[in-house]
């Protein structure tokens, strides 16, 4: 069983037993702006002096919303049937100099701004060739429940 990232440029050190990977970030050396994933140029100041690095896996919720209706196709994490959809928290999380969006694996009633979260890796879906596609999600840690 092999595995790959949900998209190019976001993960390294991918392994399947157990499922794990390191998430990547890119930071601009000229203006200091940080980006989730890989970039060749800084989206903020257009500099080419950008550096890829490993993203730490602890952060804090900056904002959130709860998705009460299923998302449109092409959705791969489950069914888009309205009757079986569970309200899904979605958040912007701050990890070091990066703020990026992701799903939160938590009870919608217990998600809040400032909650400490960990970023975890797990299989999301399978490709047609039977390869696992790894995704990331945020999970509350510590006192925040």
């Amino acid at each position, binding site marked *: 069983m092999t595995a790959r990232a949900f998209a190019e440029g976001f993960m390294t050190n991918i392994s399947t037993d157990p499922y794990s990977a390191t998430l990547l970030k890119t930071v601009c050396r000229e203006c200091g702006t940080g980006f989730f994933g890989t970039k060749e140029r800084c989206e903020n100041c257009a500099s080419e002096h950008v550096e890829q690095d490993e993203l730490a896996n602890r952060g804090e919720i900056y904002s959130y919303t709860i998705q009460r209706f299923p998302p*449109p196709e092409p959705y791969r994490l489950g069914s888009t049937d309205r009757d079986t959809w569970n309200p899904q928290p979605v958040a*912007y999380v701050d990890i070091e*100099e990066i*703020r990026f969006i992701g799903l939160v694996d938590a009870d919608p009633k217990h998600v809040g701004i400032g909650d400490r979260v960990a970023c975890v890796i797990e299989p*999301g879906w399978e490709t047609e060739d039977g390869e696992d596609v790894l995704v990331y999600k945020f999970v509350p840690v510590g006192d925040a429940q």
Partner: protein
Amino acid sequence: MSDTEDHRRDTYVAGVGIHEFGRFEKPFEEIGKEAVLEALDDAELSVHDVEICFCANTYLPTSAGVRVLKEIGRTGIPNTDVDAACAAGASALSAASALVEAGAADIVLAFGVEKMPRGFMDPTNIYPEWMCHMGLSQNPQYWGLAATRHMHDHGTTRRQIADVAAKNHQNSQYNPNAYYTEPMNREEILDSPVVCDPLHQYAICAPNDGAAAAVICSGDVVETRRLDDAIEILTATHRTEKFPSPMGGTFNASPAGNEPVTTTTAAAAYESADIQPEDVDLAEVQDTNAFGEILWYEQLDFCATGEGGTMIESGATRPEGALPVNVSGGLISKGEPPGASPFGQIHELVLQLRGEAGKRQVSDPSVGLSHVLGAMGQCGITILRA
């Protein structure tokens, strides 16, 4: 664009036209044609007078502008189709005004037309595939995220957001070109299902079909043809957002010290028009969701940051208030045919500034402002003066 030494090159809206917004069987060519003919009629000009054309649209096939023009008469003029998501019309208006001001043409037609696909808009149009696969591609998500933070930072409430939607749904009773004209109150909005917290269904707008058009001309033409109903364009300013632009389609939102695009576009527009925000008498703004309108009060500098909730509560933006906003009913009631919506705003502002808005007429306005904001942070602000 105001106070040019050579007033012959000031720019004006000589005429406006609109096809009501809603859902129609007829093809987009028909919808666009009706709006264009009404605008030409309103300007007392013929299609033969038009030197250049711009057609704003986001979901139509190639060559939409020419397809509309051929229903009117092929006069051989240059046409450019413009896309800038929901700001496409403002981008077209910007280009049209710039050409007139520069002396490249005296009479330019700018219109927007849209016929939206039924059902969900294909999210892969805007979002990378992986975000769609993971369910991070739902349209009001980024608005829900923005609203939740604003409530945290400034104490904005769901009630205040609902009051914006209620105001606009009440205003639309008097707008025959709006899609939804049933008045709604705050409770009905708060009773509607939540889509993405804190946004309720009736506080969110729906895309639909429609068209609206404006004939732009120079001060020279206004004078020589005695176009007494022409309304001056003080500025048609268009900008794209600096990083980050958490406006749909993106996943990075790292703070980089930049202002949001509405703030920067507004500052540039006020400077270009040589007016202050206090000079604005009425505004039509991008209320694709009701929280957005609260944010625009702040970013258009109608009130201080964080005071948008207080502003809706004050009643100042109601039709009888000091600064009526979205007296047309806004996008929440009209629906949004993206290419056409800025022209719909211009149509409303022109009628208001002429004193011809009937039951929607606000008290003696001189300066009107139109604001649109689209995916990827594309923003257009147009300021008109009677």
